[in-house]
């Protein structure tokens, strides 16, 4: 494995690992706070138990998220020193602000988790709200940095150097806002459906019980609302990409030719050598309509870009299709679930089975979406300014650190999953609730 590929793999692996914990770290506090709020309003024991159980999960996941996030902030420099040297000053502002958001999250998480009996209950609730909000802010700031890598603004490029830097203009780059909204909604979607799935599975095992019902209710409300809003956010993001990164849009869609009235492809497999995407269901004028809100709009194809500067079109297109596919399925299910809830038929066994079945799709979409944005930007680390291969470290043998990190993360992932399983599934409080239900 050459050094560039090893460095990219290590970065990608670290991101893919971190994003799972980060997403749960954003969404679980929100659900935990909703549960506590329901408990304060109704005094129903199940909500309190749920808030405490989710808080436990948050502790484990937040720790893994915090340390894997630290790894990323170092790896930016360790793997891409030239990127950080040239761009550090420009992207420093969102990172610094993220630092403070992270501080607030860590401080109030400590207070929330360990302070149940030490502080007034209203303050405890408020701490949870601050954790949920600051998690959201952290995600926003970090995604703004990724936005800048896609649509770099806020500077003047002179002799390959960034001059006349305007930090806030860089932070508020065109891609940043839409990407941040998309990421935050994705986190709620992924974690919401995953949580609903876990409780759905428990519900099937334990039989009808209030505890899992309220858990599924809150998780689906969060995940379902988010995925429906995701449709609007995805549209805004796609139009932004169409306007600012035509080559990226072309590889998302497998659009090789520049044409007006470009079709929307569902599925299909791009063949970069033959410059054609085969086996797709094509909706005439669909892409022009979606990307520019005009059926006759001109869509630039990959033919506008030298072939050497193409991303890996096949992987990008397939990831994009995976993301959109998973999102659409979840949207459809969410609409059905809201209707079933009104009809009070949400907790019939077939529906709960379906919830379990669909529960991983949010995370699949989240990971696929990051593949789209990261691989779609290649071969650039800063779009049209710095190539990834020019940013990589001179340190040899990156494959060694990649291997060490991968093994470490694999072990951590397995243990974390196992621990979550133990705590969500088999802790004594669970039996307590079951007993109450059967009595």
């Amino acid at each position: 494995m050459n050094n560039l590929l090893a460095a990219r793999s290590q970065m990608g692996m670290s991101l893919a690992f971190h994003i799972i914990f980060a997403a749960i770290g954003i969404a679980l506090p929100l659900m935990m706070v909703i549960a506590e709020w329901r408990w304060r309003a109704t005094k129903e024991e199940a909500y309190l138990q749920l808030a405490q159980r989710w808080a436990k999960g948050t502790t484990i996941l937040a720790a893994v998220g915090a340390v894997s996030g630290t790894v990323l902030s170092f790896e930016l420099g360790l793997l891409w020193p030239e990127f950080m040297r040239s761009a550090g000053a420009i992207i420093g502002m969102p990172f610094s602000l993220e630092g403070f958001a992270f501080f607030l999250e860590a401080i109030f998480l400590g207070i929330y988790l360990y302070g149940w009996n030490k502080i007034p209950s209203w303050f405890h609730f408020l701490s949870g709200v601050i954790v949920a909000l600051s998690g959201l802010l952290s995600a926003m700031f970090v995604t703004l940095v990724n936005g800048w890598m896609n649509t770099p603004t806020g500077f003047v490029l002179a002799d390959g150097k960034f001059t006349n830097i305007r930090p806030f203009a860089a932070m508020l780059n065109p891609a940043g806002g839409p990407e941040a909204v998309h990421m935050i909604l994705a986190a709620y979607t992924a974690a919401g459906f995953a949580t609903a799935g876990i409780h759905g599975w428990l519900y099937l095992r334990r039989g009808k019980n209030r505890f899992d019902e309220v858990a599924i209710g809150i998780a689906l409300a969060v995940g379902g609302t988010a995925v429906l809003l995701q449709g609007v956010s995805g549209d805004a993001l796609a139009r932004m990409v169409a306007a600012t990164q035509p080559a990226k849009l072309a590889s998302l869609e497998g659009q090789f030719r520049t044409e007006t009235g470009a079709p929307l492809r569902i599925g299909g497999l791009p063949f970069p050598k033959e410059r054609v995407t085969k086996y797709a269901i094509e909706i005439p004028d669909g892409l022009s309509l979606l990307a520019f809100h005009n059926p006759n709009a001109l869509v630039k194809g990959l033919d506008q870009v030298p072939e050497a500067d193409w991303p890996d079109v096949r992987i990008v297109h397939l990831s994009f299709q995976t993301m959109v596919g998973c999102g659409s399925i979840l949207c459809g299910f969410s609409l059905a679930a809201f209707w079933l809830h009104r009809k009070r038929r949400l907790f019939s066994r077939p529906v709960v089975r379906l919830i379990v079945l669909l529960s991983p799709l949010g995370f699949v979409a989240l990971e696929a979406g990051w593949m789209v944005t990261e691989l779609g930007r290649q071969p650039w680390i800063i779009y049209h300014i710095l190539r990834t291969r020019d940013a990589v470290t001179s340190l040899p043998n990156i494959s060694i650190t990649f291997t060490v990190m991968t093994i470490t993360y694999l072990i951590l992932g397995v243990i974390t999953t196992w621990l979550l399983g133990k705590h969500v599934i088999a802790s004594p409080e669970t039996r307590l609730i079951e007993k109450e239900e059967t009595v």
Partner: protein
Amino acid sequence: MSSVSLLAGAILASLVMYSLLAGADYGAGLWDLLCHGPRQSEQRHLIEQAIGPVWEANHVWLILTIVLLFSGFPDAFGALCVGLAIPLFLVLLGIVLRGCSFVFRSYFTGERRTQLYWGKVFSISSSMTPLFLGILIGSISCDSVIIHGGVSENGFLKTWLLPFPLSVGILAVSLFAYLSACYLAVDAGNAELRDDFRLRGLIAGLVSIAMAVITYVIAGSSAVGIREELSNRPVAWLIEVCALGSMIVAFRGLLLRRYQQARIAAAIQVALIVVGWGIAQYPYLIRPGITIANSAAPRNVAAAIDVALGCGAIVLIPSLTMLFAIFKGTRGVTQQEQAGD
């Protein structure tokens, strides 16, 4: 004071906070490794109680330090990441293992042996991380990291695998252990447990004095620049005298079992050591080539980050004060005692 020096000062301040807070958490990990005697499990329990609610917030000081470094001094960060990639990577590995194994141990429900195994991972990684952090500090102070065009002149090992950085590493471990013992003696719920950590504090304190002397001697041959600054600058003398004074107060506190006094004095001592290092290092970030001036981001960027830091501090300081008031205040201690009884 220019916006750039202000930012450099903020980085040093953040490093001081990291040493005082997270440093003590690492030290606690070392004591976890060395737990022995009849009160072994009580000692472990105390350590877990002491760092559980705060370690994540404490850890953020490192993130802030790194973020400010790469925003304000991108060239220095780039050079650090090339020349000292290996110790940085080991620090990272230590951070990951420490954080994860700590929660794994706390939440583990299976076999006792496996839980003890997580405890070992936690305590070993807690002891290794400050060693490499110290090595990083030592390496940037001893003229070994020279980067030209993204390539390290001394390779990737000879930048840090040297006597001076190694002795700074051991000094960091012993100082953090000392600091942590002083904190734990206050947090401990009963007199016997306090005495355990009193003894440990005294031993670690003596080791750190020895390591400081050894480091100073080694500096004579390999870190001449920073040694000269430490020996010749009047400001450095002042700080050295104050650090010595607080050390005496801390030792007196430990000897007379005035733990509150020992805790505060030890914290001041460690803070002064880090500040003293920072002043002796000034105006360099990485000796011999990278200074605050020649690696700084443009002035307006530094100024904007300074403003962001100021705004952040308005929110951060009361929040942090609250966190420590809730868990480390006298009320917290008495409640822990009640829970222990």
